[in-house]
């Protein structure tokens, strides 16, 4: 066709094809990685959860939803889930609560040394969770640990079973160690939000009669609402998928007092050799993570 319209159409068609092909090529690396490390393992876990088999079993017995029925009746699963919820809600209160207060102090409370304090508080975030847990393991050791000595030096008695050996307090100790590492991250996240609130907004509020706590409630919190929601979601996801702290500090003990879904999955898979059952626990964890991830995406888009 010699008409200009024909020529245009051809050129347009070529552009679309090449743009489609280049999009596909650009997406390929990410998609391949997702496929290998997320989708395929997830599919294998879902299909594996329908069988009963061990690490070295030559065959797999199809049990349908049997593993899920067993799960519902398993008290340790419920203890693990409860512990996950304790870590989730405890982390929200500790990490976001303290992070918020620290961020507010660094943003408006102190006039010098804020960079120094910010760096110090953020430092644990860059250390691996395993290293943090090992350090705390030493601090909490009933024989050589620093904490026992500090408690004794102020005239108090440390727990006789040790900080991590007492089932009544061990989950709270794990929660505290996780908070020690992660609060710095929350502080930096919230601080970024606070620093994005224009000074004039606070000045207008001061003229309207809102200063101090009233300004924090009516101006600061609504201004960083979206960041707080994201912080809650990040903490929630972290609380459900927690493994490293618990594994290094207590391995889920004593008497499952710190067992969480992550360590319970590991226990069933690699200690007890129930891979099918471990897959079922992992699928439940996956469903929880997908639900929260969907919520996070939705909130992020709104923000």
């Amino acid at each position, binding site marked *: 066709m010699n008409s200009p319209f024909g020529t245009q159409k051809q050129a347009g068609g070529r552009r679309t094809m090449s743009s489609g092909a280049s999009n596909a090529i650009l997406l390929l690396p990410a998609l391949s990685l997702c496929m290998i490390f997320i989708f395929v393992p997830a599919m294998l876990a879902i299909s594996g959860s329908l069988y009963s088999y061990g690490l070295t079993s030559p065959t797999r017995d199809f049990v349908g939803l049997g593993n899920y029925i067993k799960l519902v009746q398993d008290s340790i699963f419920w203890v693990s889930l409860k512990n996950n919820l304790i870590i989730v809600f405890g982390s929200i209160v500790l990490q976001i609560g303290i992070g918020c207060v620290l961020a507010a102090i660094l943003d408006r409370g102190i006039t010098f040394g804020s960079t120094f304090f910010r760096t110090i508080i953020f430092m644990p975030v860059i250390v691996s969770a395993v290293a943090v847990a090992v350090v705390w393991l030493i601090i909490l050791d009933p024989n050589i640990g620093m904490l026992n000595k500090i408690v004794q030096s102020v005239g108090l008695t440390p727990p006789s079973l040790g900080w991590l050996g007492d089932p009544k307090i061990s989950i709270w100790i794990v929660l505290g160690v996780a908070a020690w590492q992660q609060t710095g991250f929350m502080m930096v996240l919230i601080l970024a939000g606070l620093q994005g609130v*224009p000074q*004039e907004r606070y*000045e*207008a*509020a001061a*003229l*309207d009669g809102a200063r101090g706590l009233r300004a924090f409630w*009516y101006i600061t919190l*609504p201004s960083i609402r979206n960041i707080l929601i994201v912080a809650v979601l990040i903490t929630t996801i972290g609380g459900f998928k927690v493994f490293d702290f618990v594994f290094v500090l207590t391995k889920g003990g004593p008497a499952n007092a710190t067992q969480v879904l992550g360590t319970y999955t590991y226990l069933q898979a690699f200690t007890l050799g129930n891979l099918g059952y471990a897959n079922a626990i992992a699928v439940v964890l996956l469903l929880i993570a997908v639900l929260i991830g969907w919520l996070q995406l939705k909130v992020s888009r709104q923000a």
Partner: protein
Amino acid sequence: MSFLEITNIVKDYGAFRAINDVSFSVEEGEFIVMVGPSGCGKSTLLRSLAGLEDITSGSLILGGRDITRDEPADRGVAMVFQNYALYPHMTVAQNMGFGLKMAGQSKADVKVAVERAAKTLRITDHLHKRPKMLSGGQRQRVAIGRAITRSPDVFLFDEPLSNLDASLRAQMRVELGHLHAELGATMIYVTHDQVEAMTMASRIIVLNGGDIEQIGTPLELYNKPANRFVAEFLGSPRINLFDGKIAAINAQTASIKIDGIADHLEISLSSDSGPMASGDKVTVGIRPESINDTAPWKIPAKISVIESLGRETLFYVNADPVKTLDPDAKDPLFAVHKSNQITAQIGDDISLGIPQEGVFLFNEAGETVRYPITQTAP
């Protein structure tokens, strides 16, 4: 005693003095405009009045009450910010009623006050919207509405129109003028835009380097500037200034020698002329609109730039060897204003007729020693 007494205000930031012993008073219902270049202390002074800056020394008395150390909300002032400073998470109505809510007023009272202010500002239809859904002009109205709702004794405006485009700024200037007349409120307005100052003010305060240069009505300041700074600051295009020297002087006349011009500029003196002596260096000033074709004393020049604005024409002309004293200009050109349409070409010769009636003289200290005699004093 005046409605607002500002006495010996000093504001230091460490070793830097932002406001230097400033005193003035404001009568109830006045529209005071504070102008000056960036860093002159006008915004600092306004923020000190609002209580957003603690002053180093001095006192603020509003309606007979000492408010120097009062909290911002307790001073009886409301402020409109340059960037509006609206609360983005609140609706327009909530923004406007927030001050009253904080003051513990009932929901019904807040609603009445908000609706009344919204009606005044014609934003009733937007009360349920969030600020991000509004245009710049509407947001500024909401910011003004927030101030009105609190029924303050004094309204403070910190360059409220500088974020708006030129046409909206002109419209808002008129609206603010109407609002001032309608509310009869005392307003203090900070701007660096001398057009806003000239068009809206009952009185203008010109600030420079933390000091007050002059206080007066717009025409007083335009016609009788206390010094060269005020003369230069008010007027657009700015006043033409060039060097001269007093060749001869008596009680009635002075003869000014201008380098490069053979004839002396002869000007009459009057009782309000300042002290001058033969041989004194002076700065001669002439407003662009005062230059005409008929004055006998002329400076030959060539047109460099023509700005045809429809109802008026501005020429920027090179009067070499007479140079204007404009530190900001690359080429020191004379500005000439004609209040009609004139057809001319760049490079055309033009004679700048300097009528002696329109001449300002400033001494070496920058003080005005001779005012023009043609303008009608206010």
